[in-house]
């Protein structure tokens, strides 16, 4: 048994097409690779020559699960390039739209994609036979998120109402009545989901990540803030390219996003929570503590609890934003094209999503650069796989493979997003 190769040819319950390849020699893990075979769609190339106003709709198509994240990072980058600021209720509505996407995406991942790993089911549908109320609760939460997306965006997937400068149409106060009622019930469902996932059995694993997330002076980060890390990074969004780069590593043809100074880092719920737990309401912090979460969390398997805490947060935040809503005077801030460079970064459900555009004088896109969360996490995913496989090396192949797949699903990876930005090779044996 000197050499073992563990492979998963098609990862399930992740968004996109990926595979896992783990090599073990003489009882030691020698390589762990997340292979991405998603066909590239070349967005950064096809955006060149398009108008600045088209970026939110075109980049939304990078990901059907987090289109709002793409739209938000795109509009922030364009507004930066064009020298305008969107504040007040327009900004609040954007945050509210983003809450809808977080609710939808987190509920989907927690209940339908991730929980089955802990309870030993192939999917949420089969899990529903034994855990009916948890699955129905998760679907009900997901539905509320989608209702919010539909109200503000026109539809759940690839919303049509977002534009550079704001929205095409803004809702009346009364329009929020039904969704606000649904959100009140959703809050109880989210708390129940949190309590449910908190008692799952979790493999022991503590990883020494450098967490990277956004940080806002007084809010839990979603749509605005600086980029900070657990090792002292604290920069404006525009400084992203000077601190981060995409780099080839010797063992892989896939490009990994790294911190130039220190290498791998982690984005997403664990990073956001560990850097911003103090921005959560005290009541929710107490609930998190009751569910066994300290102010930081370094066990990637426990990310499902952190996602559930965030799920409670965004339901409450959506209710707060709706209660404070007053329709703005105009649905958007007027924009005029000009030459410029703009940067945008927001917190997609899976972690920070960075966009940079260079515009010509008439607003035509000259260059586009998009760095999605999953390509930033790829190196951490592979390091997790090494650690997980090393700890579980005595398990039989099938059990080891399941554990490794679960380690990848901890990230809720979005491979359709990542692939356009990874240098990937066709693997030839």
């Amino acid at each position, binding site marked *: 048994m000197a050499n073992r190769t563990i492979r998963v040819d*098609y990862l*399930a*319950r*992740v*968004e*996109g097409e990926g595979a896992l390849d783990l090599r073990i020699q003489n009882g030691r893990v020698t390589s762990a690779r997340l292979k991405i*075979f*998603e*066909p*590239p*769609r*070349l*967005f*950064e*190339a*096809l955006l*060149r020559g*398009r*108008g600045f106003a*088209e970026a939110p*709709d*075109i980049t939304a*198509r*990078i*990901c*059907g*699960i987090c289109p709002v994240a793409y739209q938000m990072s795109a509009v922030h980058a364009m507004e930066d390039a064009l020298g305008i600021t969107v504040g007040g209720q327009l900004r609040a509505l954007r945050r509210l739209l983003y809450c809808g996407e977080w609710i939808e995406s987190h509920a989907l991942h927690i209940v*339908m*994609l991730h929980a089955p790993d802990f309870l030993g089911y*192939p*999917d*949420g*549908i*089969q899990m529903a036979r034994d855990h009916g109320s948890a*699955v*129905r609760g998760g*679907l009900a939460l*997901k*539905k509320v998120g*989608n209702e919010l997306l539909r109200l503000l965006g*026109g*539809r*759940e*997937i*690839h919303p*049509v*109402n977002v*534009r550079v400068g704001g*929205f*095409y*149409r803004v809702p009346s106060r009364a329009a929020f009545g039904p969704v606000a009622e649904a959100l009140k019930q959703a809050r109880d469902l989210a708390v129940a989901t949190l309590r449910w996932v908190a008692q799952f059995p979790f493999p022991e694993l503590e990883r020494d990540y450098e967490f990277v997330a956004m940080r806002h002076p007084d809010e839990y980060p979603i749509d605005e803030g600086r980029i900070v890390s657990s090792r002292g990074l604290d920069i404006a969004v525009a400084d992203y390219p000077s601190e981060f780069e995409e780099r080839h590593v010797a063992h892989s*043809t896939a*490009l990994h996003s790294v911190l130039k100074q220190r290498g791998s880092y982690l984005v997403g719920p664990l990073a956001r929570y560990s850097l911003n737990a103090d921005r959560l309401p005290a009541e929710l912090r107490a609930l998190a503590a009751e569910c066994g979460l300290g102010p930081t969390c370094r066990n990637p398997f426990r990310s499902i609890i952190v996602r559930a805490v965030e799920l409670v947060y965004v339901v409450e935040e959506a209710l707060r934003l709706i209660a404070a809503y007053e329709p703005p005077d105009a*649905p958007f801030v007027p924009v005029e094209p000009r030459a410029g460079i703009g940067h945008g970064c927001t917190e997609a459900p899976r972690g920070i999503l960075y966009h940079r555009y260079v515009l010509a004088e008439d607003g035509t896109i000259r260059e586009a650069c998009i760095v999605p969360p999953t390509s930033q996490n790829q190196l951490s995913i592979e390091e997790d796989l090494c650690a997980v496989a090393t700890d579980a090396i005595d398990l039989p192949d099938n059990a080891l493979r399941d554990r490794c797949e679960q380690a990848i699903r901890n990230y809720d990876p979005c491979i*359709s997003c990542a692939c356009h*930005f990874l*240098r*990937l*090779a*066709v693997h030839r044996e």
Partner: protein
Amino acid sequence: MAPKRRPRLAVWKFASCDGCQLSLLDCEDELLAVAEAVEIANFPEASSAMANGPYDLSLVEGSITTAHDAARIQQVRRWSKVLVTIGACATAGGIQALRNFADVQEFVAAVYASPHYIRTLATSTAISAHVKVDYELHGCPINKAQLLEVLSAFLAGRRPAIAAHSVCFDCKLRGNVCIMVQGTPCLGPVTHSGCGAICPSYNRGCYGCYGPMEQPNTAALAAEWQRLGASRRDIHRVFRTFAAAAEPFRQESDAHGE
């Protein structure tokens, strides 16, 4: 009476954003009932249980952009009694079909530092360019109510009741005041219905994400756009977006090219 065998459903992904297959998971109220009515035999985005074919109904998302996928779709066809394509990528090549109008090697070099690692075809093509397709459901993304109708219809052995008229028709049904009349250029008159006319309902011109309706008069609409102040480039771009490779839209964008 012996219990009736449940029809076997498979969901396949090619080059795409996953949004159209997500539409099935977005049927929050119906999902568990659907899973009772059919055996979900292969749906990797939702389940790690993947059963071999044959399948009674395959839903195919995404376009063909690699040699590997061109071979894989042949296999999917062989396994599938009925094959339905879902969404703009599968029915028209999607936004990634913009490569069809460019030099794909130049595109690859613009994104990837080591372009020689990338194996991709010069074009992004619809599934129907490769295999026989039994039904096409349009949209970027598809409408989940229409998806449920397609599922129900094929399970019952009938044609789906999906309207083939333009977005204009749906706008009238919603009681919208025409936004073209108010001066906003709109692709509604030439675009396949199905979205529910959401853009005009949000004070925005339709941008054609459901692709061309049958026999659209794109030239007349382009002339109307010009009258409303749209430039040649605006018209070129709007027809060359999410259904760029669909023939009527391709022709109209070409007519307004450089």
